[in-house]
């Protein structure tokens, strides 16, 4: 009997809550896909280090999944609370008809169970299907060859999805039952009328809180951008949570005060307020917003985090893909540190030849690097040192800075595809490509420098964009290039060889790298780096960033959009009568739909607009952090992020509008 009623209720309300149901399914799909990466990569040929990165990534994603399931849990509890509230009258009628509270609870349990099981089954089915497609993207991300396309299905991820969502639904059921248990019949029956009152807020309080929220957010914006070093100096790094927290409180207060003031302001503009259905539209909107200030604030913060997360994550992935091409422009590099000043230069060519690897090399360039104990980083910064120490209080500048001869550097420039450095007889050039250091270096570009006892002037006012060690990004903090004559009599502290192979085959290169690494070069220390290792490292980082960013971003996005859409739909159900009244007093269908559209559009836009304002500063902060790994712009990834948001958030808006229009 009850089961039949439960089925009937679900079927009846399916159209009204299709959006809620789709969100559940979407949640399951995303959860499954991000937890089934192992099986998605099963048919990829991954190197040892990439596989270990994969395992690490799975662990990270698994940790993120716990957080995600909390977010989804809150979403589902919130939504179901919402749905139950809407049905209070129905429950009231059941109670007056003599159904016991126990039975009603059971009814709700059954309904949740049916909806849960259906969403899980459909969601898992869709997840498995979609993961066939996503595995192609994963392969591309890992730059791995797909040996052949194979159907993938992860039992582990399926079980995990079942368990996590099972727990979520269980918690939801408990919540629902407790909620129904607490209800009183009279309240259930009067539920509809109760929340219709217009609560007016004290205008003075609104203004005070509005100003306070603007001040809070203004300070937070400053604290995470221009004021960051001022705020953070002499404080633990965790202090950064203060402006973030204040920003959240400010967001809440802003929405609280605006929702109180906006109506007053607009209704005093009699000409706008008194036009067509505007008075009705604004009143509806303001009661919508007033009834969920807290939710809108949370949604605003979630949207803000989504934009920052997605932009940062995508830019990291994008940056590494591009920068490897540029900064890991040789296949292998060997550095040998000299034991003493008397040790002779390493004869790489001879050693390689003896070990039988020389014939595999298409290019071999050997150069030397010097350092002057009387010329360290601090000296090289000259008068700019003071400003820079103020900016980076944690860094010391007393290590000697690298120096290369111009002929050596230009040999490197040739093989590594960089611009060459031209230095005249008594000139020096600075080679740097680390974004934050380019600026610092620019501060002192016209100073004379004393290197190995000779006064040298700069070779112009331009920094040379280059490096001497292959890397995954622009991490060269700077070295000097001087005329060959100046270091004729000095002894370098290390020599290194830059190598390109004939073969471009991954496996062959790995074998060669291993052979070269096994050679005994003498010297006090040897270090190697290869394009393949750099690639694998940065792929791990970029894949991790992409996955975590997408995972969190997508969940935040659908959660916020779903809450707004549900609110819009349930309000429309409540407001049907109002639209009928409008019809009776002669409003056109066009006007009525226009009013509905305006209400929903503004309702969806409000949190998004504030989130975008937050983003202007949040992105600056992200960029400040990302600059340390070499990312210099977020523009491209922000465009991608905007497209994702327009598609998902906009999609929810359109779906909500279409559904509510049909309900009228």
């Amino acid at each position, binding site marked *: 009997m009850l089961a039949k009623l439960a089925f009937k209720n679900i079927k009846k309300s399916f159209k009204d809550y299709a959006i809620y149901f789709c969100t559940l399914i979407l949640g399951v799909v995303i959860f499954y896909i991000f937890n089934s990466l192992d099986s998605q990569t099963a048919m990829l040929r991954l190197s040892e280090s990439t596989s270990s990165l994969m395992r690490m990534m799975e662990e990270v994603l698994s940790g993120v999944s716990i957080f995600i399931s909390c977010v989804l849990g809150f979403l589902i509890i919130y939504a179901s609370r919402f749905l139950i509230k809407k049905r209070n009258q129905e429950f009231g009628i059941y109670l007056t008809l003599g159904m016991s509270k126990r039975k009603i609870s059971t009814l709700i349990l059954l309904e949740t169970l049916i909806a849960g099981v259906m969403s899980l089954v459909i969601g898992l089915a869709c997840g498995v299907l979609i993961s066939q497609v996503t595995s192609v993207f994963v392969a591309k991300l890992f730059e791995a060859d797909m040996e052949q396309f194979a159907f993938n299905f992860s039992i582990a991820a399926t079980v995990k999805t079942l368990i996590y969502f099972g727990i979520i639904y269980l918690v939801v059921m408990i919540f629902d039952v407790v909620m129904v248990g607490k209800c009183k019949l009279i309240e259930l029956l009067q539920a509809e009328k109760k929340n219709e009152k217009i609560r007016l807020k004290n205008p003075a309080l609104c203004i005070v809180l509005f100003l306070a929220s603007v001040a809070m957010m203004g300070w937070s914006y400053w604290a995470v951008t221009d004021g960051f070093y001022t705020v953070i100096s002499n404080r633990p790094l965790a202090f950064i949570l203060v402006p973030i927290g204040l920003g959240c409180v400010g967001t809440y207060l802003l929405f609280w005060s605006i929702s109180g003031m906006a109506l007053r302001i607009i209704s005093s503009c009699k000409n706008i307020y008194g036009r067509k259905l505007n008075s*009705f539209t604004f009143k509806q909107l303001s009661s919508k917003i007033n009834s969920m200030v807290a939710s809108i604030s949370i949604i605003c913060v979630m949207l803000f985090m989504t934009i920052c997360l997605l932009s940062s994550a995508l830019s990291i992935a994008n940056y590494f893909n591009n920068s490897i091409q540029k900064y890991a422009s040789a296949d292998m590099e060997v550095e040998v540190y000299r034991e003493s000043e008397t040790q002779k230069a390493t004869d790489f060519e001879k050693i390689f030849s003896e070990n039988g690897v020389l014939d595999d090399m298409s290019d071999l360039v050997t150069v030397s690097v010097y350092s002057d104990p009387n010329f360290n980083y601090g000296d090289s910064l000259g008068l700019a040192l003071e400003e820079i120490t103020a900016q980076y209080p944690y860094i010391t500048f007393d290590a000697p800075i690298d120096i290369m001869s111009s002929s050596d550097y230009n040999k490197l420039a040739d093989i590594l595809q960089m611009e060459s450095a031209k230095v005249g007889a008594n000139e020096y050039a600075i080679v740097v490509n680390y974004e934050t250091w380019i600026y610092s270096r620019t501060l002192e570009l016209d100073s004379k420098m004393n290197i190995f006892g000779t006064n040298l002037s700069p070779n112009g006012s331009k920094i040379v964009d280059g490096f001497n060690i292959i890397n995954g990004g622009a991490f060269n903090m700077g070295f000097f290039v001087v005329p060959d004559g100046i270091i004729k009599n000095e002894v370098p502290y290390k020599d290194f060889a830059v190598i390109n192979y004939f073969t471009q085959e991954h496996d062959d290169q790995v074998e060669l790298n291993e052979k070269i690494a096994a050679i005994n070069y003498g010297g006090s220390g040897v270090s190697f780096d290869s394009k393949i290792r750099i690639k694998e490292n940065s792929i791990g980082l970029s894949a991790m960033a992409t996955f975590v960013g997408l995972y969190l971003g997508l969940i935040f996005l659908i959660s916020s959009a779903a809450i707004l859409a549900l609110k819009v739909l349930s309000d429309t159900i409540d407001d049907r009568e109002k639209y009928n009244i409008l019809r*009776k*007093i002669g409003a056109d269908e066009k006007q009525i739909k226009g009013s509905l559209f305006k209400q929903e559009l503004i309702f969806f836009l409000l949190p998004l607009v504030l989130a975008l304002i937050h983003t202007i500063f949040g992105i600056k902060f992200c960029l400040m952090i990302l600059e340390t790994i070499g990312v210099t712009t977020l523009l491209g990834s922000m465009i991608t992020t905007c497209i994702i948001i327009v598609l998902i958030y906009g999609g929810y808006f359109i779906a909500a509008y279409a559904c509510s229009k049909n309900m009228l």
Partner: protein
Amino acid sequence: MKKLLQVKHVEKYYGNKNNLTKAIDDISLSVNSGEFVAIMGASGSGKTTLLNCIATIDRVTSGNILIDGEDITTLKGNNLNKFRREKLGFIFQDFNLLNTLTGYENIALALAIQNISAKEQNDKIKAIAKTLGIEKILDRYPYQMSGGEKQRVASARAIVTNPKIVLADEPTGALDSKSSKALLETFERLNQTLGSTILMVTHDAFAASYASRVIFIKDGKIFSELNRGDDSRKTFFDNIIDVITLLGGNLNDAC
């Protein structure tokens, strides 16, 4: 006198071939400009259906309805909406005020839909509020008003657009006797001083006794008609009761 409303052989059926309800069965009547007409009948006799057809909220199955010379049964879409908001005013049993708007805003909305400027809205509302004695409650929300006050605000909303005819469906149905009396006196005043044409549906003889003419319907047909003439309201009331007795039983009980 000019015939403002003409209902000609109107029929309205509900349901399908097997299960047909004749809600209105060939009704013809006319209302002159400046008249206050009441339609009486037991519950289920087709009063609301007739009023809804006249109000263009519902469509007739056959027959014609002419308002101000225009056949409304042929109007469609936006023309219909335009006609409704310019020529008609409605008062409903359950007030149909928007809970989120104040009394003033509820009245203003009817004018705003007609693109009347805010300034003009204000003048018109002030004037009608004075006539109906609701100046003090204009800034209140419906939940802060009594039933009688709500109905007077609803009446103001119906009248303020200067409609050709005001249609009222059981306007006193949800009011206590004191508020009913006050509302009916308001209708009388509107009819006499502003010359508003009012068509009121009711099953209450007391309410009907305020009209200048009463039309009785039974099972979707016109049963009888009473003119007040120069009679006092009390005499008219007694006459109405006589017809009701003839109709068979008390209309109030039938509800």
